[in-house]
């Protein structure tokens, strides 16, 4: 009896209602081996079907690993029909009983309370994280703003200077040229002179336009517009521009060309011209006696540009300053805007070349530049030789992109393997440790970032380059946080791709040692 028979009948009935009916007590008695002996209560209330072969399997599962000869109490068990019950096992000599007491109301109450607390904690965590990120962003924006303001002030000063110093006299020159050319002249020498003036003025105007681009940022300027260059024509043009100017000062001007390579030179012609013109402008400006020599040599897919003068030279303490923008005073008697050599340095860097300067005050200056052909930048012999035999694994689900990457990497000397999904790439990379792993971020299923994270979490230390069409800083940071060494955006900038691949593989080699 669940209640004492000596108690008043109404109390017994009340207690029965409270303890049995309200809790929907279900009593199941079992012999060893879970053979059901007796059942009291409504098993369907708990989603149990004792008559079905596996109808009590979920109850049995509850006691896996537990001794059935000792009382057990498992509170708040969610049963197959979603109801919650307190489940008790009562040992009884050779048998045992399982009691189920409804706990749904208590569970619901508890769940509401816990849910609120947990959601508040999770929201608090997300909030503090977001506040931290916002603070970082605000600090970064502040820093960027200061540097942008500084850069912008510099740029505005430059543009204002150039607008006035270049455009105004050029407008005047073009105007008078037009007037003079309208007067037909039979004098061949005069006509040639006018052509030379127009040619020089035109080039000066183009140069001014290029200088105005100085403040427009590195990225756009860094793209090379490669064409086949007629070095003979280039030499003749600059000779036509500068020889008269030099000779007018009593300075000899010589220009030579050595064309020892059968292949056609491919360069960004505008940039190449700017380099030569700036160097010669400098030479003519600071040379009052002796000679100026321009020597172009095309050999081994490299163009050597040498400009040598016998001018005033540069004092050793100013050598390091001549390549800085707005440098006026590195050379005595400087009259220019102080931009010429800084532009030369920038253009040489953009063209992946090298620049050397030798100078002695009173004796002259020698600029020596070497520029690789644009074709050689993508797949030059030095890259191929250092990268030949290296293994690259490309993971991209876009067959066209994957093929492009494969071709580019093979041109660089890699042995390339291509996979279309991240999961198999993780296994393959762990297995083969390629020298380079290129992973698209937007892969179906497991994302590229997740794959990179998994690899790093498994101790993979090889170089990884992530590729994505998403050019935002957030996307880049997410990839780098996941463990990529480099992040490239699509469409690919060929030069940047090659530079990043080289750097990545170089870093990997360093790390391996």
């Amino acid at each position, binding site marked *: 009896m669940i209640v004492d028979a000596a108690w008043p009948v109404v109390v017994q009935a009340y207690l029965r209602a409270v303890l049995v009916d309200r809790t929907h007590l279900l009593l199941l008695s079992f012999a060893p081996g879970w053979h059901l002996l007796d059942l009291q209560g409504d098993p369907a209330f708990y989603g149990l079907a004792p008559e079905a072969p596996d109808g009590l399997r979920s109850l049995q*599962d509850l006691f*896996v690993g*537990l001794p059935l000869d000792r009382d057990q109490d498992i509170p708040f068990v969610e049963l197959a029909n979603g109801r*919650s019950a307190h489940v008790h096992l009562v040992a009884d000599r050779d048998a045992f009983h399982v009691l189920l007491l409804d706990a749904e109301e208590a569970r619901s109450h508890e769940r509401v309370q816990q849910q609120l607390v947990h*959601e508040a904690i*999770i929201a608090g*965590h997300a909030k503090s994280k977001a506040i931290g990120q916002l603070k970082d962003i605000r600090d970064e924006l502040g820093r960027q703003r200061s540097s942008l303001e500084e850069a912008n002030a510099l740029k505005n000063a430059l543009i204002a200077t150039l607008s006035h110093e270049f455009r105004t006299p050029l407008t005047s020159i073009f105007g008078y040229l037009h007037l003079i050319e309208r007067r037909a002249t039979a004098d061949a020498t005069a006509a040639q002179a006018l052509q030379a003036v127009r040619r020089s003025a035109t080039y000066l105007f183009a140069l001014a336009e290029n200088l105005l681009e100085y403040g427009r940022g590195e990225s756009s300027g860094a793209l090379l517009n490669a064409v086949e260059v007629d070095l003979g024509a280039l030499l003749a043009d600059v000779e036509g521009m500068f020889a008269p100017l030099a000779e007018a000062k009593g300075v000899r001007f010589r220009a030579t060309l050595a064309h020892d390579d059968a292949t056609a030179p491919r360069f960004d012609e505008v940039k190449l011209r700017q380099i030569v013109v700036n160097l010669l402008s400098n030479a003519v400006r600071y040379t009052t006696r002796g000679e100026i020599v321009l020597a172009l040599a095309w050999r081994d897919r490299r163009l050597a540009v040498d400009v040598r003068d016998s001018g005033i030279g540069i004092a050793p303490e100013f050598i390091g300053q001549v390549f800085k923008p707005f440098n006026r005073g590195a050379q005595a008697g400087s009259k220019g805007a102080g931009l010429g050599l800084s532009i030369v340095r920038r253009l040489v860097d953009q063209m992946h070349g090298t620049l050397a300067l030798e100078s002695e005050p009173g004796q002259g200056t020698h600029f020596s530049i070497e520029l690789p052909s644009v074709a050689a930048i993508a797949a030059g012999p030095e890259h191929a030789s250092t990268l030949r035999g290296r293994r690259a694994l490309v993971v991209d689900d876009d067959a066209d992109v994957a093929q492009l990457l494969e071709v580019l990497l093979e041109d660089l000397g890699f042995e390339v393997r291509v996979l279309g999904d991240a999961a198999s790439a993780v296994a393959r990379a762990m297995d083969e440790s390629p020298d380079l792993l290129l992973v698209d971020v937007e892969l179906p299923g*497991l994302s590229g970032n997740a794959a990179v994270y998994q690899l790093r*979490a498994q101790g993979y230390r090889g170089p990884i380059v992530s590729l994505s069409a998403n050019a935002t800083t957030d996307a880049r940071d997410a990839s780098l946080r996941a463990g990529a060494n480099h992040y490239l955006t699509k469409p690919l900038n060929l030069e940047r791709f090659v530079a990043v691949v080289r750097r990545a593989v170089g870093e990997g080699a360093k790390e391996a040692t």
Partner: protein
Amino acid sequence: MTPLTHKVCMLGDFGVGKTSLVARYVRSTFSDKYLTTVGVKVDSKEVALPGRDPLKLVLWDIAGRSALDAPSTSYLRGASALLLVADGTRETSLNSALNLLMQSRSTLPDAVAVLAVNKLDLVERWEVAATTLSELRRSLPVFETSALSGAGVEEAFAEIARRLPG
């Protein structure tokens, strides 16, 4: 033949995705609605491993806790294995999982333990560093999982099954 049955307890802080991992593993379902587990929910799944008799895993999805209290400890009794679950986006949940592992050792000194770091689909927001997991792998099997996509889920449970006596 009745397969050998083992009790596996899911242990971890609240909101790390224990219930979702079980739902993904047992029923191949996922819901992004968070519903706190109160008490325990028991599911089961048979596992067939190559070269071994099938096993039945009885999965105890226990309410999330950062530390073991008396009721949670009582749920652990009889367990052969623990799947410790952490949320990669909350580093504290990894500490909780490791803390729970240490606490459970007094009740279950020999239980198989595997760590699942969940929410791989949100890897961009993870606070848990890859190097941390790389270090942890020296002492216990670690799986990055996503109950949403299913990544790593099957593998984590299979690892438990592999380590259980057949």
